[in-house]
């Protein structure tokens, strides 16, 4: 039962990632990132209850405050001048179809060639749950490579970081000091990025940087 609850919640996290990949409007993408972070915080709270771990509960609070709230706020500020703006490039839907293929292959390869060969065990649920953070990680990478806009690429990076938190929570909760520092680091990076978002929203080839 525990494993099924975890798998259900983790798969919802992936659904949010797919929504972000298939979405062209920035505001909706940013908001879905907040939903994704809240879902991860919920998983952390559930495991905190199951394992009687205060650290996991504190982590859940930190995720909600720093990621679901603060990062969303900064990203929204970055696009405040034109909240209706959407991805400039064509083919967002085609990329989404390509992403589903990439995602399926990467997940199968990862599970059968890597995860099943490592002697890993989890305290709650079963080993196959670990596929979700890895899939989310690849989904974040794909979002970065498939889009040209600053906002979409930041969201890809935040998705990667969410994947790491999910992996840590499911496999072995790492010390809170490290986890909190990671959350602050990501927040710092998003703040710096949102400054750049105001200056440059799309990324094309620049002749000066060739070679």
């Amino acid at each position, binding site marked *: 039962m525990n494993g099924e609850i975890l798998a259900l919640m983790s798969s919802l996290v992936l659904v949010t990632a797919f929504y972000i990949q298939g979405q062209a409007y920035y505001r909706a993408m940013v908001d879905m990132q907040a939903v994704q972070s809240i879902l991860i915080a919920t998983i952390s709270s559930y495991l905190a209850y199951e394992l009687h771990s205060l650290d996991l509960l504190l982590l859940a609070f930190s995720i909600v405050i720093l990621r679901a709230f603060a990062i969303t706020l900064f990203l929204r500020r970055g696009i405040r001048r034109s909240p209706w703006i959407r991805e400039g490039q064509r083919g967002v839907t085609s990329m989404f179809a390509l992403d589903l293929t990439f995602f399926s292959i990467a997940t199968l390869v990862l599970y059968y060639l*890597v995860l099943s*060969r*490592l*002697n*890993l065990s989890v305290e709650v649920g079963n080993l196959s749950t670990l596929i979700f953070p890895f899939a989310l*990680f690849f989904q*974040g*990478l794909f979002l*970065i490579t498939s889009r040209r806009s*600053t906002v979409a*690429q*930041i969201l*890809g*990076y935040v998705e*990667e*970081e969410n994947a*790491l938190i999910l*992996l*840590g929570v499911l*496999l*072995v909760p*790492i*010390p809170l*000091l*490290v986890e909190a*520092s*990671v959350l602050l*680091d*990501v927040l*710092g*990076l998003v703040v*710096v*990025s949102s*400054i*750049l978002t105001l*200056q*440059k929203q799309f*990324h094309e080839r*620049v002749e*000066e*940087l060739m*070679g």
Partner: protein
Amino acid sequence: MNVNPLLILLTPILANVFAPNLRVLKLASAASGVIDVVLLALIHNMESPGFFLLDRLSWTFALMICCIYLTSTLYSLGYIEIRGKSLISEPLYYVLLNLFTATMLFTVLVNNFGLMWVGLEATTISSALLLTVETTESTLEATWRYIILVSAGITLAFVSVILLYYSFGTLTVTQMGGLETETVKLAVLVGLLGFGTKVGVFPVFTWLPDAHSEAPSPVSAMFSGVLLPSALYIAYRLYEVLPQPLVYTWVGVITALVASLLMVSQTKFKRLFAYSSIENMSIALLGLSVGQVNGALLLLLSHAFGKAGAFYACGELIKSAKTREIREVRGIAWRMKATSTSLLMSSLAVTGAPPFGAFVGEFLIMRSLISKDMILQFSLVLASLVIAFAAVNYHVTSMVFQEGEMKVERVPKVMSLVSMTVSLISLLIGLISLGVMA
């Protein structure tokens, strides 16, 4: 003498207290560099590891960081003039420079893989805006590539941190080892790719030439001289957990070869030196993975000063000739004597010409490759060294000696002085090490 590493770490941060007054902030930044170098030089007894790890290895990296921080701060006094459109103000430039140094020091001094990761990621946050001193289309694009590529790569390194914690139940560097499982092996290899993004290993080095060429020269010097080695330091600490010499050496060899081949076709002098940094880091990685730690450290130390000298000389050229193109810089031997001397010396230093320190370091590494029967790796690295030497020195000598039209403006003397001094230090390191070997 015992010195608390926290003191070394806090010194550049404390300089930021003077941020409201630019003149005092500049002085305080330079003074904090001097204080840190003196503090590190005074250390004789290494403390037993606790929250910080100060052994010979981390001491050498910390000393390198403080020296280049000091010279870059002094050079900035003449180089940095922020007027008009810029994302950052001049006081903010020094504040970020100090924070950037503190984050690098934290990375090499802390005794915890998780916090090392945090420190390395913090170097990106503190240094990203330093690239935007001249806010242009290309600097903004280079800054963005730096942020997104490095961060996406380093994220992968955190998978390695999680796997290490799962295997050992701790992230303390000095408490790891003695466990040879597939999970630990995977952690070390994933860590190489993740932290390697910031070292500039193949194929994840694409951010590096952009960031190095678009950053202001004192920042390029810090990037190349000490930021890349800081990431290399973590990759080596990870390697010590469960050595994977085959993968590490081949990553080093392939990176050196690719970087040296790319150097041949460069048309901008700062990009040329950026590719040279990739080549030098890969050879240092190779040295560390074949157990030639002294050779690698000597190479890194000499490279830090040599490359700082090269980027400082490039800064003088950009400021006086207003160009970054190799073909537009001609005959500087007669027009800018001090700049051309330091440019020549530093390019010889970073390409491993005798008697510079890089030559001694590379010689020791190559000797180790032969002694370990790594003949194929030896041959490929030798070819890379020859190509890199020819490419850099061909371009530099054409800039220095070839006749041609060129207008130059005077640059502040402090810039030439710092540039010349660091090039001479690189030579001095070589002479001392040759003396010790003899």
